[in-house]
């Protein structure tokens, strides 16, 4: 475990170096991207900007300062917002996490369920229909789906709220977890919590659709791999109820490969929901990443890069641990 931890540290450091080099290779001047047309022609304003963000130092010095601050938990200051990147991440990450968790929960329940159903009904009409449905799910562009969903369910049917995390008449709850639903409940603002929950539905369903398709396919394949094994036949022959055979024996054996996909799906949603967040005006990490990239906000870009790396590292680690829990034959070194 200690060896793994050290490896992760080096991995994180390597990612900061790559992100730093790549952002500095991009043609474009952060001062020009952040200062106005007049201010950029003012040497005093440009000098002030460069000095504030350490851009007047050599690249090696800049990276050294960054790593030193990183070691102390300081990710620098966003050039756009002039706030600590840690503060900004602390605001944007929970917004995406709230969306991602619900989206993955829906995807897992529905996707795994449909995958089992498809396997149970192998080569029957249900199986064929579900395979088409899952293929459609993974083929449909998410941004298009978001626009269509907004148009149909908000604009046409008025079944669900539109963009943002809350309706205008509700104020954002005081941040404790950053999850509006939880924070509002903690403060006894039940109407706000209900409104926040309503606003979660449409974007999380949109995000879930792709993963439902993915999980349906993977679960179906994994279950089919397991279902014809001798021990399953033996379990059935012993008179064990079918539900128990499916849940305790089939699913448990099929779960490791499905778990990998769930982990990757979660990481993807946490780090890559830019378009959906943009369409639904969801102030999450995707929007933050987009804004940082287009304005050459170097500290923010580095912060987001590090966050993405950490998410994938943690998710992979958790999946590895869960492997061991599900299947004791697999041990985490």
């Amino acid at each position: 475990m200690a060896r793994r931890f050290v490896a992760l540290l080096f991995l994180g450091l390597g990612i900061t170096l790559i992100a730093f080099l790549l952002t500095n290779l991009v043609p474009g001047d952060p001062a020009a991207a952040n200062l106005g047309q007049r201010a950029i022609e003012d040497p005093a304003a440009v000098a002030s900007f460069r000095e504030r963000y350490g851009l007047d130092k050599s690249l090696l010095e800049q990276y050294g300062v960054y790593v030193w601050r990183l070691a102390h938990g300081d990710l620098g200051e966003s050039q756009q917002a002039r706030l600590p990147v840690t503060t900004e991440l602390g605001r944007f990450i929970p917004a995406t996490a709230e969306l991602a968790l619900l989206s993955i929960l829906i995807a897992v329940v529905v996707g795994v369920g449909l995958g089992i159903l498809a396997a149970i009904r192998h080569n029957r009409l249900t199986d064929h229909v579900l395979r088409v449905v899952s293929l459609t799910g993974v083929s449909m562009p998410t941004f298009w789906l978001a626009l269509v969903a907004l148009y149909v369910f908000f604009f046409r049917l008025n079944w669900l709220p539109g963009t943002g995390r809350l309706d205008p008449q509700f104020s954002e709850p005081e941040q404790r977890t950053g999850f509006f639903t939880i924070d509002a409940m903690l403060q006894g603002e039940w109407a706000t919590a209900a409104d926040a929950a309503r606003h979660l539905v449409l974007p999380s369903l949109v995000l879930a659709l792709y993963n439902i398709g993915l999980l349906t396919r993977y679960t179906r394949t994994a279950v089919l791999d397991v279902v014809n094994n001798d021990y399953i036949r033996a379990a059935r022959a012993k008179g064990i109820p079918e539900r128990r055979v499916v849940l305790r024996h089939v699913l448990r054996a099929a779960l490791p490969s499905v778990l990998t996909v769930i982990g990757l799906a979660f990481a993807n949603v946490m780090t890559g929901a830019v378009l959906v967040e943009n369409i639904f005006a969801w102030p999450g990490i995707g929007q933050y990443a987009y804004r940082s990239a287009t304005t050459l906000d170097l500290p923010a870009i580095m912060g987001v890069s590090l966050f993405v790396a950490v998410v994938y590292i943690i998710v992979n680690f958790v999946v590895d641990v869960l492997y061991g829990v599900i299947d004791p034959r697999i041990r985490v070194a």
Partner: protein
Amino acid sequence: MLNSQAARRALLAVAGILAVIVVAAAAANSNNAAASGTLVVDKAFDLKTADPQRQFEVSGGIIAHVLYDTLLEFRGSDVTNPLPSLATGYKASNGAKTYTFTLRRDVRFSDGTPLTAKDVVFSFRRLINLKGNPSFLLANVTSISARGNYTVVLKSKVSNPALPAIVANGSLGIVNSKVVKANGGTDAVGADKTDKAETFLNRTSAGSGPYVLKSFNTTSRVELTTNPRYKGRRVPKFSNVVMRNIQAPAQLLSIQRGTNEISLDLSPDQAGPLFGNKNLNVQAVAGPNIWFLFANANPKISEITANKRFQNAIRYQLDYNGTVRLAGKGSRRAAGVVPSQFLGALPDSAAIKQDVTRAKAELAASGLKNPEVELEFPSDFTSSGLSFGVMAQKVQADLAKIGIKANLVGKPIATSLANYRAGTEQLGLWLWGPDYPDPNDYLVFLPGQLVGLRAGWAAGADPKLEALGRKAGSTQDPKVRGKLFQQIQVQLNQRGPFFPLFQPGQVVAASKNLTGVAFNATYQIDLATIGSK
């Protein structure tokens, strides 16, 4: 084979979960802004800060306009006549190098503190010393002083007839100096390093405007609530305002569903279906931005584009009416570089008209055979819903008709700006948005000035025009100044490397019950003057 009863149960469970989620969400969904007396404004944010002396963005300007009063203000749609606001009036003297403003005595900040001259002095000095985006607005002002409690004197090193228009800018909103200082603010030299008040001002406003800041988030929403101590003309009708960060496609859906709602970013094309909607008032008026093409006058960059005959060929070949049609409803031809709403704007009759015969003759006289140039533009930038890429294609097609090959070179704005500012583009398609509503802001198009240099037009390239610019920029009488600026633009149109194209339409869509929704070229809309029938 596994039991199909289990399969049916699984399917039912999945369907049930989905249904619960959707029904629970839908159960109480409604558009509720009307019930709470909240005005909702939908805007695609370019927001960075609520600190008035740092903000210089469109979204920030809308907010600053209602949080902080300025010495003078523009009202309704007018941007030619700055009117009293905090100041009861002003006097220009010494050839418009000195301006003396007399303040109202009844103004209170939101905490009840009286607003006096020292707050004005502090705010203006802070603006300069923060060395931020808007600091240039007072670059020519050499002295800012208080004379007693209710008189402020601004002295400039050169004649500054644009100053009344400048002080109406939201970045010159007056802050409560005592409160800002108590929260880390300073107006001293070095404020760019030592001022720490921005974080405070992003939580709590310290102004005298009709609203105060309730919450501020640069990516989701800004909430305002009425200032109970406001004393002024603009008594707000809505007790709360929520400005939401929403992209234009979602704004199009939201405005048709909402009540007490305004949408500010629809393009003329997007707003098409809304004209005639009985639940909405939709205005499409010309905005203040000027889209223009330029040909680099520096022969070191391109001997082709620096050729005067070649420039004239472009000038008379462009399909100006076509570009206006492409820009959509509300757009209008830019007769010159000064927008139609400003003092000194050229009448439409003075605009260059397409003359293909003349264009061909100019190209033939240039001596250039099959000229080929690069047309650069920001590929990821849209303004008023218009894509630079689409306009660049239009220009390319127009020029191709007389044998000029313009190769499109689109780059993300973060990188294309570098070439533009460096003056290395052969042909460039850009826009200029006004920093303040005065023709002096457009002296930048002259040789040796900011935009002139970007078009390779060095100082000394046109001494006559430059002299006229100096004269116009320092003339105090507005009528005379206006005429001088018209002369400048006529000459620019005749022999400059710039080809003004159009002012894009600005669409403001509002719920039918809202009153007082008027687009203003400086602050977009005045949230405080909007009411409900």
